[in-house]
């Protein structure tokens, strides 16, 4: 019996091995590099602090690399965690590391499922998101994408695997992406609920108030209106009160009010606005957006349908074979080459350097906030933006150098036969121009860029170059 006990091998502070699988244990922020997840088979997060777990899970599932976001994530000592968001994004809990062997099957299963997938690396942001969702659903063998009511979501509902990719303010674009996916036949949908979003910023954090129809102030006074039958007088109750006692006296005929329904009644109410003095019977209902401050008529809110989505057969095939959109993919942008072509050219350049002395470089420019750019610009404008960016880069590098998109937010380019120092300088000039361009065209939003240059090293494979380049960008 003793010998049969499966072996758990502590490799380091944060790595344990069990059944041949390597588990990365994350229990603090210090020194955490999410990219390390790629080199392990699963992640175990210390579950004592819910906020901590939420953040780590978010960072893993939000990662662009499928080698990271698809990894199994378990929670250690997470019995107290009730957040549905965390539950949807993790694969199980354990009470102590001794239980690791029980995770073997699940880890194995997810690894197998993941290995069945092909990825297209589309440069369309929507396509990337859709691919991510369906791949995640495929590996977790969950055919249903269910909206969960979620207090931290700006649209009041969360589709966790999609939501992690967006900041709270941009979450509404999830609904657009899901609609595209449904049109592509990836999902079937079922009505779940309706939400009302701010017409200005799409937030669902609204405060509804009854307001004056003239000036929209919520500061008003409400009084019953009294109709005195004998004389026909109609007026607010204040007209009838006296200073001596609680009785009500008619200001027109001086008679005392006796009995409701017999000598008087209260047929309606009178609201008086304390702001503009308007008198009215019916309030307007206004919704004040707690995110942007906009106060709007309830009728002006954007009504959106929240649906429950089920993966179709076509959706499953798209996960396995790689998702290619029929409509929304960004076609080849003039001045750039396909990513595959870029990798081939890179290989030749490395070969060439092996034979001749010289210095060549590979560079990357990354948009740091692509989900924000997408949610605020929409895919058409975003495409125009990418075209503009390529134009700028093109006019600043030599014609023999090539440009390509690794994905919709990462541009890679070669800068051959110049010292790395010069390549860095040119690149920083390009960024300056891009920033100025963005400032003048997109006044309300800032696009942030991140760059990196590495010299080509003929001792390294093209894949290794790209790996180093992108790792540095994260």
């Amino acid at each position, binding site marked *: 019996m003793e010998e049969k006990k499966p072996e758990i091998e502590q490799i380091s502070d944060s790595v344990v091995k069990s059944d041949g699988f390597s588990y990365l244990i994350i229990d603090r922020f210090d020194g955490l590099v999410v990219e390390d997840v790629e080199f392990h088979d699963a992640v175990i997060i210390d579950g004592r602090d819910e906020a901590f777990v939420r953040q780590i899970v978010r960072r893993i599932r939000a990662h662009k690399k499928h080698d990271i976001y698809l990894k199994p994530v378990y929670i250690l000592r997470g019995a107290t965690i009730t957040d549905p968001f965390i539950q949807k994004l993790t694969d199980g809990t354990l009470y102590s590391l001794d239980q690791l062997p029980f995770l073997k099957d699940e880890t194995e299963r997810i690894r197998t499922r993941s290995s069945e997938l092909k990825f297209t690396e589309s440069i369309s942001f929507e396509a990337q998101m859709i691919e991510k969702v369906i791949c995640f659903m495929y590996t977790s063998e969950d055919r249903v994408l269910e909206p969960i009511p979620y207090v931290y979501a700006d649209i009041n509902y969360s589709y966790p695997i999609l939501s992690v990719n967006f900041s709270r303010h941009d979450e509404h674009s999830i609904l657009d992406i899901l609609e595209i996916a449904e049109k592509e036949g990836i999902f079937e949908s079922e009505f779940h609920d309706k939400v009302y979003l701010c017409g200005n910023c799409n937030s669902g954090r609204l405060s509804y108030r009854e307001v004056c129809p003239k000036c929209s102030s919520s500061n008003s006074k409400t009084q019953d*209106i009294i*109709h005195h*039958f*004998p*004389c*026909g*007088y*109609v*007026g*607010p109750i204040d007209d009838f009160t006296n200073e001596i006692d609680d009785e009500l006296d008619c*200001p*027109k005929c001086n008679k005392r009010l006796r009995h409701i*329904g*017999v*000598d008087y*009644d209260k*047929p*309606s109410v*009178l609201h008086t606005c304390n702001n503009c*003095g*308007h*008198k*009215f*019977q*019916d309030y307007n209902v206004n919704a004040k957006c707690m995110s942007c401050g906009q106060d709007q008529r309830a009728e002006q809110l954007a009504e959106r349908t929240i649906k429950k989505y089920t993966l179709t057969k076509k959706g499953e095939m798209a996960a396995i074979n790689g998702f290619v959109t029929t409509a929304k993919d960004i076609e080849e942008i003039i001045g750039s080459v396909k990513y595959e072509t870029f990798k081939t050219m890179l290989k030749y350049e490395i070969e060439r350097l092996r034979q001749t002395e010289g210095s060549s470089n590979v560079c990357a420019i990354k948009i740091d906030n692509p989900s924000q750019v997408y949610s605020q610009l929409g895919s058409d404008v975003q495409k125009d933006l990418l075209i503009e960016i390529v134009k700028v880069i093109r006019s600043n590098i030599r014609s023999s150098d090539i440009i390509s998109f690794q994905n919709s937010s990462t541009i890679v380019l070669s800068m051959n036969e110049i010292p790395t120092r010069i390549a860095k300088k040119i690149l920083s000039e390009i960024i300056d121009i891009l920033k100025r361009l963005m400032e003048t065209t997109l006044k309300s939003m800032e696009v942030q860029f991140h760059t990196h240059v590495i010299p080509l090293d003929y001792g390294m494979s093209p894949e290794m170059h790209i790996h180093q380049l992108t790792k540095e960008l994260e």
Partner: protein
Amino acid sequence: MIEEILDNYLRFLQSLNVGHFVRLFWFYIFFEFIRYFVIEWIVLNIWRLSKYLNRDKYEKARQEFLFENPLVSIIIPGKNEGKHIYKLIRSLKEQTYQNIEVIVIDDGSDDDTPTIGRDLEKAGWIDQFVRNEIRGGKASAANTGLRFCKGKFIVHLDADCSYDRDAIEKIIIPFYLDKQVGGVGGNVMVRNYKQSLATTLQAIEYFDTISIGRVVTSKLGVYRIISGAFGAFRADVLEKVKGWDIGPGLDGDITVKIRKIGYKIKFEQDAICLTNAPGTFKKLAKQRLRWDKSLIRFRIRKHHDVLLPNQSFKFSNFISFVENITYNLVLNVKWYVYLSDMIINYRSLILNILITNFLLYTITNFVKFVLYSVYRKRSHAPMSYFLIYIPCMVIYFGYYLRIVRSVAYVQELFFKLSYNDPWNPKKTSQHAKRMGL
């Protein structure tokens, strides 16, 4: 047979001398001809002349009004009037004077009026739609409207009427002509004059008797009733009289109340409103019974104090009152006196007397109709349309309306039936009856 009657009648005419004529037709000569033709015509000419002489003053008042551009609140109280509101609002949107707010008061409608009202409110066609869930009667509905008004002037309209493009402008100007004016009545005309004989005859009545009659009484300072279909009031004056009292007949009542506190009441012939008159004689009888009963109720019972020489006594109010009583009540009684006089004393001539009366009245009506067209502003109908109906007016005025009036007076004087009128909710009528209002 007919030849014999004609023969007989011609001989009767030949035998007539002046003394005899006066003796036989005293009612026509003294009441109808002198009061309602000669005096009326003289006053009309005076009115015409003074209007011409004061045309600069009028233009100045108009300029003052338009320069000040005061908010005019239009209140439209009613029950189950939703179907009419659209047409009315359309004519209000066309007004030359646009600083208006429109407030519709729904007095406990049980049809789709609330839906229509709220829709119009949302669409911005009316400024406010106020609903009393429980019906309280027309007075209380109008009074409710006052609670939501902000204007310097209040215009009271009926939902089933529509208005000339300049009607609002025209009805407000008199307030600027004379700062003592507290209320102005608009000129009501019949829109559906072609619908039936009843409406055609009413149209003629509105032209000659009501409209011209009001021009005359207004000129004499004894104008009595601001029509509920179209009346304008100073908001502060309405506030002083604390709004309308319980009806029916609240239009006449509020006029008396305003007069009592020292303000003038004017009629504006140029402020034109089109109304739908009752389409059958039966419906018309019902309407007139209500109007006529309110004369007894409000003039004689409620406001008899204008006859008494106390501090609120005003000669014009006194005259207005006496004129009203004479025209309606006394005249009605006198007519029966005349009829009895003829039957008792000239029994053998009764047929000839009837024929002569008929001819006298018809000729007068023709002359009045044609002559008065000079004083009429203009009409929404071709005048020639009405000419062939003029002979019917003798029957309409002389018999139909007179009988209705008589019935009304008897009902009200002896039985106080107006308090049972379903026009008001019972709960309010009971109180009015007990208090002698």
